């Protein structure tokens, strides 16, 4: 079908495609700085291919999603509802939030978990203009020596890392590309 409707653009073979997408998402989260391609669906604009695929892979009726800024469209809401059943919520309740860095707003709006349950925190899907292995220097679990990744806001992400084991985790998406930054990664600007 040519026209984008709330019902189209999902996985054609959900178990297999979602498993591949999950593998890619897990790999980039386990190896901060690594960039993978993520495809399989056609999300409504302005969601990128990678961000849309990630939402369909990770979300279900029990994950609350915040659509920040331009991503909060009627088409986007209906599409996400049909394919995942995920409730759309404000930033402070979100398990997942998606949007540009500017639209997502200050990080202190999001849940960072509790000492008993650090996992009760938000994962932010940050839509970027470009995603490249340059600029910020990453080190920590999952990284041999160092890795590099173009990050939208180094000071804010550094301060998130100081909250460890609490804090938010991040996916960065651009077109069909995806990378990730868990809260356990140390960030430097040098070089």
């Amino acid at each position, binding site marked *: 079908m040519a026209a984008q409707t*709330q*019902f189209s653009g999902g996985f054609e073979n959900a178990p297999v495609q979602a498993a591949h997408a999950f593998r890619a998402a897990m790999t980039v989260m386990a190896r901060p700085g690594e960039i993978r391609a993520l495809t399989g669906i056609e999300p409504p604009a302005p969601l990128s291919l990678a961000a849309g695929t990630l939402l369909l892979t990770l979300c*279900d*009726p*029990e994950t609350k999603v915040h659509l920040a800024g331009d991503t909060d469209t009627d088409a986007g809401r*209906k599409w996400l*509802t*049909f394919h995942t*059943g995920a409730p759309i919520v404000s930033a402070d309740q979100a398990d997942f939030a998606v949007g540009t860095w500017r639209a997502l707003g200050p990080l202190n709006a999001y849940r960072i978990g509790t000492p008993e349950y650090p996992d009760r925190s938000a994962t932010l899907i940050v839509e970027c203009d470009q995603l490249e292995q340059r600029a910020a220097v990453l080190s920590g679990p999952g990284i041999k020596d160092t890795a590099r990744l173009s990050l939208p806001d180094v000071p804010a992400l550094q301060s998130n890392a100081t909250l460890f084991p609490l804090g938010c985790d991040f996916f960065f998406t651009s077109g069909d590309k995806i990378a990730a930054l868990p809260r356990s990664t140390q960030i430097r600007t040098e070089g």
Partner: protein
Amino acid sequence: MYVAVKGGEKAIENAHTWLAEERRGATDVAELTLAQIREQLSLAVNRVMAEGSLFDPDLAALAIKQARGDLIEAIFLIRAYRTTLPRFGYSNPVETGEMACDRRISATFKDAPGGQVLGPTFDYTHRLLDFKLAADGEIPEAPQGPARQEPTPHITEFLKGEDIIQDEPASDETPGDLTREPMEFPSNRPLRLQSLTRGDEGFVLGMAYSTQRGYARNHAFVGELRIGKVVVEMDIPELGFAIDIGEVELTECETVNQFTGSKTEPPQFTRGYGLVFGQSERKSIAMALVDRALRWEELGEDNLGAPAQDEEFVLSHADNIQATGFLEHIKLPHYVDFQSELELVRKLRREAEERITQKEAAE
């Protein structure tokens, strides 16, 4: 301490093959079909659905067959399976007042509207073995009467008019779900009921019996027991309205408990509640008694220190899959743990012997 042990693959494989053979039994005896189990061992199927916490009679029948009739093993299989299912959502609360009742009795009101409907009960059987069943399966057809068209009202509705029974005001509060968030104490009534309805029938029965024998006695009457089918309705987001998504058989028990009043509540009847998948009468009565015992705090009663009043004790031990997992794991290899224990006991023994020898030498 757990240490990976290698080896035994061949033995395990052969054990599994033999298990399959033993499960089948003598091959000159016809093999059980799932439909036979579902239709003819339906109360076992019901128990597996209730404690497996998944309503699907065909799956429960398969689990019973695979588990060779070991119901806790079958429940384990169902619990494992249900974790693989994507959760489509939560239903609207079922309306048990709309139940198509197969059975509906009250121990408190003889002439309740809707009457005393016995249904297919064991209650008035003589508990004598029926050797005819060993010979053939011929059964007479059950007689029919004039079918009731309208729903059967709840008995407790009649007491409400007199304002003499504690009310259960409706709410739309979202209940906690112990399959999603680990149980924390103190808990609340919705979580307690979820835990009890999937709890081990034997454990819940034992706890309920303890209240009858005097450990936090709460003088329960079965105000009403009903068994039948209710429709399950769910809001479908893409439709924008709710539809029936199926029908489940339930057993509901409401106890009416004598209550002379407390520091905070006037004398009135209080209530215990049991609701269980399938025809699970013993379980739902037991659940209602235990529910009532656990309500001591909200009703302003004294904590008598009875086991059935101890929420942490009851809820932490009600789940037979958690229990059997922890219990049965001790038969698996603990060679290294035991080796260290052995070393320790030998050392203590040596030291004790040395002390005795030194003492004797000194005397």
